[in-house]
C-alpha cells in the first residue's frame, strides 16, 4: 500500500511517498537519499543501520517506515553542519575509529545519543562498550572507537558540540 509519510528528517520536515511494506532503512536510503544508513543483516543484528528515532538509537531495518509518521529521525548526515564534520565525526577521524567505514555511521549515531544522555558524567570504557554492543565492527577491534567516543565527549564538555 502506497502512502505519504511525513516526518522530521535531519531537522527538515520531509514528505516521501512510501510503501507500507518498506522499512525505515529502505526509505531512508532509497527515497530519502541518506546512504550513510548502511544495510547489512536486515535483521537487527549488526547495527550498521542505526539511526536516531525521537533521539534514541534504533535499527532502521527493524522499523516500519509507516510507523515513523510524525516522528523525528536523524542520520549521520544530520550531524554535518554547513559541510563541516561534527566534533564527534572529527574525533572518529582523529583517533582512527574508522577503517572500512561501514559500521561507522551506525556507531556515530549510537555514540552521539550516548554522549548527549551522559551530560556532564564522564563516560567509562565499560559504559561505552555496553552501549555499543549492538554495533558490530569487524575492522577496528573497537579500541579506537572507544577512544573516539572519549575524545568526542571531551569536545562536548569543552563546548564544541551541536
Amino acid at each position: 500500500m502506497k502512502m505519504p509519510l511525513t516526518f522530521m528528517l535531519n531537522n527538515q520536515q520531509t514528505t516521501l511517498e512510501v510503501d507500507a511494506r518498506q522499512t525505515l532503512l529502505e526509505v531512508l536510503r532509497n527515497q530519502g537519499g541518506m546512504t550513510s544508513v548502511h544495510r547489512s543483516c536486515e535483521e537487527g543484528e549488526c547495527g550498521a543501520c542505526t539511526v536516531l528515532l525521537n533521539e534514541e538509537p534504533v535499527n532502521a531495518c527493524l522499523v516500519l517506515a509507516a510507523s515513523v509518521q510524525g516522528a523525528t529521525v536523524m542520520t549521520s548526515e544530520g550531524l554535518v553542519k554547513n559541510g563541516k564534520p561534527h566534533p564527534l565525526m572529527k574525533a572518529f577521524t582523529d583517533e582512527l575509529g574508522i577503517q572500512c567505514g561501514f559500521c561507522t555511521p551506525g556507531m556515530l549515531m549510537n555514540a552521539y545519543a550516548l554522549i548527549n544522555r551522559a551530560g556532564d558524567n564522564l563516560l567509562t570504557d565499560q559504559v561505552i562498550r555496553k552501549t555499543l554492543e549492538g554495533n558490530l565492527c569487524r575492522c577496528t577491534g573497537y579500541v579506537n572507537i572507544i577512544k573516539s567516543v572519549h575524545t568526542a565527549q571531551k569536545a562536548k564538555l569543552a563546548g564544541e558540540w551541536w
Partner: protein
Amino acid sequence: MPDYSAGNNAMKNSVMKNFIGSRAMPDLVYHSPKEMKDLLALVDAHGTSARVVAGCTDFIPSVRTGRWCFDQELNLIDISKMPVLNEIEKTDDVLKIGAGVSLTRILESPEVKAHCPVLAQAVEQMASLQVRNTATMGGNICMASPAADTVPPLLVSEAWVVIRDAGGEHKVLLTDFFTGPGRSVLTRGQVLTHICIPVKKSNEAAWFQKIGTRTAVIISVVSAAVRVSVNNGICETARISLGSVAPTPVRVSEAEQFLAGKPLDDQVIAECARMAAHAISPISDLRSSKEYRKDVAQTLVKRSILACREALK
C-alpha cells in the same frame, strides 16, 4: 584422525523452500490505532489477515528469514503508539505494564527497579540498546520463545497477563500462557494488553542470570530466575524458573518445594540446584547440547539462590 561426527541421513526429496538470504516483506496495510476500541475493531474487521505487532523486532526478522510467510495482504496493527498500552502503573501491590512499553522504558523505570528489580536485571541483558528501544515485553512474551529472557523473572514473580478480545478482558497466569515453542493460549482476535506483576515484598529477594556462548547480545543457552522469601533465616517460599531448557520457560516445582522451610545454607542450596537440573530434560540444538544445559542450569540456579541470600543479608 579426529572423530568427525558422520551423518548421511539424506533428506527425503521433500519440497523445501528456496534458500534466499533475505526475503521480501509481504504486501501490507499499516494501522496504528490509538484507542482500545479502534484496536478491537481492526482486529475484528480483518480476521485472518490481521496481525498485531508492537516493536516488530521479531516480526521483521521472521519475515526476512522465511519463518513466516503470508500469501495474502497483511493488515498490520501496530499497538506501540497506543497511550493506554504505554504506561507503567503501580497500584497497591501490582505493577502493571502496558504491552506497548519498550524494554528500555522497563529498564529505566524507577517503579520496575523498586518493585520488580529482577525484571530489570533480565532486560539489561537482553538484545542491544537499539533493539530494546523498540522491542516490547508483550512481544517477547507473545513470541513464546523458550529463550525469552523476560519470562523466567515474570514466572518467579507470579505474573499474569491481561488479554483482550471481542468478548472482553481475560486474566491468564503466565504459568498457563505458553503451550509450546512459538505457541500460547492466545488465539486470533486476541491482544495481550498488559502484564501484571505482584510487587516484591521486603523479605524477598530475586535474581536472574543467563549464559550464552558470548556475553553481549546473545540468546540464552540457559537462563534462570529465582525468588525466595525468608523469615528468620528460613526460606518461606521459593520460586525457580528456567529458560531454554524445555519447549517453554518452566518452573521447577520439586526444587522449589525442597527449598521451602529450609535454611539457606550451602548444602541446601547445592541440593536444590541439583534437583532443579534433575527436573529438566532439555534438548540439544545449535546453541548447546542438552548436557551443557543441564549442567549449567544447576550452576545458574545455585548462583542465583546464593545471590538472593546475599541480598537478604
